[in-house]
């Protein structure tokens, strides 16, 4: 047992509900997971397509500035002035060639170099501007998706992604050449783990919409990638045939060129969920706010090769289908809240569907198996240092 003191159940399909609600466990998660050896997606480069474009984002409270310089290179900085640490940029997104800190007027270019500071003759003897660029966390990218890690010990990004790489590449339009359509941002009254445990994973019974729309789920597979327990779903695309209750069925139409690529979901430990379904390409940048709250930025994309009609179709479908107000996912959002309320009760959450042996973890699953989440839980348990009970 660690100082946080939680004994993990012996059975691999049981998760103690206390892990979702205890403040002390949340504080430990910050250290071991969010500042630990994980990579966290923070932006896709298509969110900042032009020289001078930037985006800010808070990852587990840490303010980040992601900026494209005038030569087109994207970098990630801490969004804090290298002088006294004042928050540098306040806008969520925009275009700037220089960032000026208002406090003592230090000026940085989009490469993060300090290019101006008034009255520096009064500073420490030997003060040199080149010693004060904006600080940077470790970052790397995969098909334009930028990841940050807050630990020096983290393995390389390709190792971290492992076998999820191909599914993720397909999800990013095959080549990562995306075009931003916009955001839906929301806070859920839910622990970050209740969010990731229930987003992506699809309980068909929940979705009244599938029945009313005459929509059968496509056949598919679900597998675990790497020891982190990343979850990948690959399934043939199922398209509604026959009558639906919708008057405008373009909402559920597939107009893409490549039905073989079908639906994809990649859920990376700890909080990232991404999906490509019908013509929606959606990256969900999620960050814990406290043990009771998670903030999710749903970013939607078209592909750069889309013609105008396709962009329009993606825009209309993306807005109304899979987000916090979407036809087939508003219900998921409500489950995040309700699971979190339910987790404030004693005992364990018990996974059933797809579990064959309570003492064994598997790595291949059927599309709607709950058991796909279990390797991730095992990784969580080991990172947190929780011992399994003997009996």
């Amino acid at each position, binding site marked *: 047992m660690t100082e946080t003191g939680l004994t993990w159940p012996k059975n691999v399909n049981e998760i103690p509900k206390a892990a979702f609600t205890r403040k002390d466990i949340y504080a430990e998660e910050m250290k071991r997971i969010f500042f630990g050896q994980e990579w966290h997606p923070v932006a896709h480069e298509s969110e900042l397509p032009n020289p001078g474009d930037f985006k800010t984002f808070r990852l587990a409270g840490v303010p980040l500035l992601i900026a494209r310089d005038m030569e087109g290179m994207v970098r990630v900085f801490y969004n804090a002035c290298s002088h006294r640490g004042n928050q540098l940029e306040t806008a969520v997104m925009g275009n700037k060639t220089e960032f000026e800190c208002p406090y003592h007027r230090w000026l940085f270019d989009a490469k993060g170099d300090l290019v101006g500071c008034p009255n520096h003759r009064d500073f420490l003897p030997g003060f040199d501007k080149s010693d004060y660029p904006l600080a940077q966390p470790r970052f790397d990218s995969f098909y334009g998706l930028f990841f940050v890690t807050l630990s020096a010990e983290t393995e390389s990004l390709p190792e971290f992604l492992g076998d999820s790489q191909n599914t993720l590449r397909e999800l990013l339009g095959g080549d990562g050449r995306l075009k931003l359509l*916009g*955001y839906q941002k929301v806070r859920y009254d839910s622990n970050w783990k209740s969010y990731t445990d229930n987003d992506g994973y699809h309980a068909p019974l929940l979705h009244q919409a599938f029945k*009313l729309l005459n929509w059968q789920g496509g056949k598919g597979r679900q597998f675990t990638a790497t020891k982190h327990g990343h979850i990948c779903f690959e399934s043939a695309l199922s398209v509604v045939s026959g009558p639906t209750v919708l008057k405008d069925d373009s909402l559920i139409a597939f107009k893409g060129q490549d039905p073989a690529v079908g639906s994809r979901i990649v859920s990376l430990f700890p909080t990232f969920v991404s999906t490509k379904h019908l013509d929606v390409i959606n990256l969900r940048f999620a960050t814990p706010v406290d043990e009771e709250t998670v903030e999710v930025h749903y970013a939607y994309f078209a592909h750069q090769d889309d013609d105008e009609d396709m962009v329009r179709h993606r825009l209309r479908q993306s807005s109304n289908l899979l987000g916090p*107000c979407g036809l087939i996912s508003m219900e998921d959002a409500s489950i995040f809240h309700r699971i979190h309320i339910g987790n404030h009760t004693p005992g364990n959450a018990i996974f059933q569907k797809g579990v064959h042996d309570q003492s064994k973890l598997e790595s291949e699953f059927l599309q709607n198996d709950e058991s796909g989440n279990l390797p991730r839980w095992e990784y969580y348990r080991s990172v947190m240092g929780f011992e399994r009970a003997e009996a």
Partner: protein
Amino acid sequence: MMQTDTALEAALDALLLADASALDGKDMQGWLANYSEEDEASYICRSAENSENGLALGFMFDDCRSRLEDRVTFVNDIWVGTFQDYRTRHFVQRVKYWRVDAATISVRSNFSVFMTPTDSGITQVLAAGQYLDTVRLDKAGGLKLLSRRAELDTSVLPRYLVYPI
């Protein structure tokens, strides 16, 4: 014949309040009835942040009459029993209007929406923002919404949305 300003203002306010009343009463048919029968009738709910950055994506994007009708189906038929219900109170205030042509008026109003989830009973602000409306005057002198954009200052929602704002 064009109405006098006072009569027109009263009619515009009546339309704004009819919408607030339908939404707070969860009367989706009543909500739909405030919109014009024209095919282009539209309701878009979007963050001001998206709009200001040239991003057209919305929280709700009902850009034709059939999507408005489908929105009624979502709430009344498809989502029944799957969410935690909440009450809302919409406060609307007309800020500015101008006549576009004999049958069309542009209206800008502020809104704030309180929500009270039935389970917690705690009231909080769901969203604040402005309605950017195009209002159609029909032959009988009635007013309907041809298009409404609920532009939310609230770029991060405190909750998922079931009902339009």
